[in-house]
């Protein structure tokens, strides 16, 4: 799997390259600035891109903007955005085109390399990965809203994990319940939130996120 990495700090970039190579990824390019990123993305059209939000030249959200621009030109180009902080505003912008194949994680998540690599694979496969912090804030914001209050505690847990972009089996593993139970919960959640049921993981995540973001 070919990956483009964009990170301006040398140590982090180098660490990411080693980490991904150790997990069998092929590094198509490792760049340290936004214009270079855009060029590499358009040139290599990688299976996934790991992008830091803050990049030169202006050290603001150049990385994010370059990634969004690349996705405008190449629809559905898989991009996993890393940042020292997560902002729902940026999550919204990434999700706005409803094409999936996006991820938005805190940089700390790299510490857990298995989950990080899973996240890259999910994004590369067209899935959506959102940082738990984004999801908890989204839920916190809707906490007083009518549909959310109708959910049981377990259903809320399932909803959170679904919104993070996990598959049914991953959710089952995490909550120590059967996959069948997860399926039941998710049907119930969709009914309570008045969403059209969907068996496709990606569409399900997008539907949930769209609901939370509304």
């Amino acid at each position, binding site marked *: 799997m070919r990956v483009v990495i964009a990170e301006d700090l040398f140590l982090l970039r180098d660490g990411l390259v080693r980490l991904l190579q150790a997990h069998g990824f092929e590094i198509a390019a490792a760049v340290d600035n936004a214009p270079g990123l855009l060029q590499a993305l358009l040139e290599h059209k990688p299976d996934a891109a790991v992008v830091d*939000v*803050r990049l030169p030249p202006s050290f*603001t*959200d150049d990385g994010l*903007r370059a990634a*969004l*621009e690349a996705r405008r030109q190449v629809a559905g180009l898989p991009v996993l955005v890393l940042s*020292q*902080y997560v*902002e*729902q*505003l*940026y999550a*919204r*912008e990434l999700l706005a085109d409803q094409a999936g194949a996006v991820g938005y994680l805190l*940089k*700390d998540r790299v*510490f857990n390399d298995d989950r990080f690599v899973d996240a890259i694979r999910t994004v590369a496969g067209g899935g959506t990965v959102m940082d738990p912090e984004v999801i908890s*804030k989204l839920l*916190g*914001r809707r*906490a*007083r809203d009518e549909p959310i209050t109708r959910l049981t505690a377990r259903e809320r847990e399932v909803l959170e994990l679904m919104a993070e972009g996990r598959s049914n089996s991953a959710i089952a593993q995490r909550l120590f319940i059967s996959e069948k139970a997860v399926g039941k919960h998710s049907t119930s959640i969709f009914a309570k939130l008045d969403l059209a049921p969907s068996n496709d993981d990606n569409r399900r995540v997008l539907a949930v996120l769209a609901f939370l973001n509304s």
Partner: protein
Amino acid sequence: MYIVLVVGAAACCCLGLACWSPHPSGEQLRRAGWVAGLLAMAASVILIASGGNAGLPAYLAAAASGLIILCAPPQARRLMPIAAVAIGLAGLALAVTSIRPPYASLGLGVYPRASAWRASLLIQSGVFLAAGLWLIWRARHSRPATAAPSEEGHSGEGTGRWAGRGRWSRWGLLLVPAAAIAVILIDQQRGHPAWKAAAAAAIVALIVVALVRGAAPDLAAAGLVVLGLFAFLYVLAPPLIPHRAATPATAFAQPKPVSGAPQGKLQGDFSAAPQSMPKGDFSASSAPPEFLPDGGVYVSTDGPLELVAGIEAAAILALGIWLVPRTIGVRARTLLRPEADAELAGRVEQLTQTRADAVDTAAAELRRLERDLHDGAQARLVALGMNLRAAERLIPTSPRAAIALVAEAREASSRALTELRDLVRGVYPPVLADRGLADAVRALALNTPIRTETDIDVPGRLDPPVESACYFAVAEALTNAVKHSGARLVQIRIQYSAAAHSPARPARPAHPRLARPFRPAQLSGPAQPPRGLLRIEVTDDGTGGADPARGSGLQGVERRLGTFDGILAVSSPPGGPTIIVMEIPCALSSPRTSSS
């Protein structure tokens, strides 16, 4: 002779104007003033040294010093104070030794009595001496590169002690010598002993200066101008002084022919009205007047003495002209705009307050940062290091325990990162840095646990400090709404209007004294974009009852906005709704660049 006088006077006036005018060509005029000043000084020195008889050498000396100035201006500048001191010393020597030169004067005035002559001589020499010494002191101790004023050196007396009362108030001391000279000039026509009257005038002037320090410089400036003009008249048409006038009034009105003095030595017809007498009568004079033991009258009409008197007159006039815009001018400008002073005072008070607030806020912020870092991330990193060290030791003996410790260390690093992230958000929110106020407030709204609608129209970026203040103001208002109001909906409206902001607070003080020092900074900096008004409105449908006087949060916001001349208004009746309005005059620094 008169041409020299007129040129000198013109040069002095130019100098006075040059110091006033901010125009760059002022430097050339200033140099012209230096030329005139040194010429005059040189001529005076020669005249005094020769006892007043050295017409030709005086002109030669003047021409020589002119050459010095043209060839070596810096040397001329250095010679000037020495020349002034020399004149002063020569005058003092004359006064002390009582040697009466045939021309009984140093500069202004011919005197019927020795006492008057001596008083005048002492005062004038003192002024010259003080001016010279002051110039020397100034050249030594302060800005050696800047041009020291020449004739203005008269004003040097006692400046140090009075300098504390504002830059120009010390000029009020000029009133003292001006009053003394004026009294001597007037008094000698009446034939009285002049020095008592001069001393009395000086003391009165001193008292006036002490009592009304504010007005003294104005009086001095006006007095110097009048005195200078009078001195010119005096030089051009010297009064005839009657011998032993019966009363001052009649003496002045009806000058009698001199008796008891050698008639043959006097020129002109003294029974004619002296003021209307053509000057030609005097310039034809060939015999020197002299003093008589009984205080008889002698009018000096010859050239060299007139030159000295003319120089002094020009100096006094130049000083007066130079001083007028600095004293009366400032006052007149203030009088023409009476509200300026009150406005200025209010502005100063407000700036003092907001500056103190800004400093306090910044200090408190730093203190909080230090504490948070010390107790948070720093402590966690120490624990992290200790854990790793322990793990290192455990690896050979009990690897499982080591693995547990390493996992713990990873957790600790994660928590440290979270804390640092929160800290950074509190210092300067990253979205604010990335995208500016509009998107930062949108992000803030997304993070707010109650429904928050935004309507933001800011077509560009604001200055970072203003952005930050506005952001934290909105954040505080939102926090209050979430915590206390029980609201279900919050609306944030932010609008930037390019129109001139609230007239109650001027962008810049209009007062000339405050406005002037700011000019260089404004000229050197980039062109100021026009300032508009940013209006922020945070409305919630909660229970109301918010009171800025009770909570410290809104007070902090008010203080923070106050630093930028911003204002905060809260309307929160019991039962709601709560409306918080903030207005900040500010400029847009760049057009919008965000991609959203």
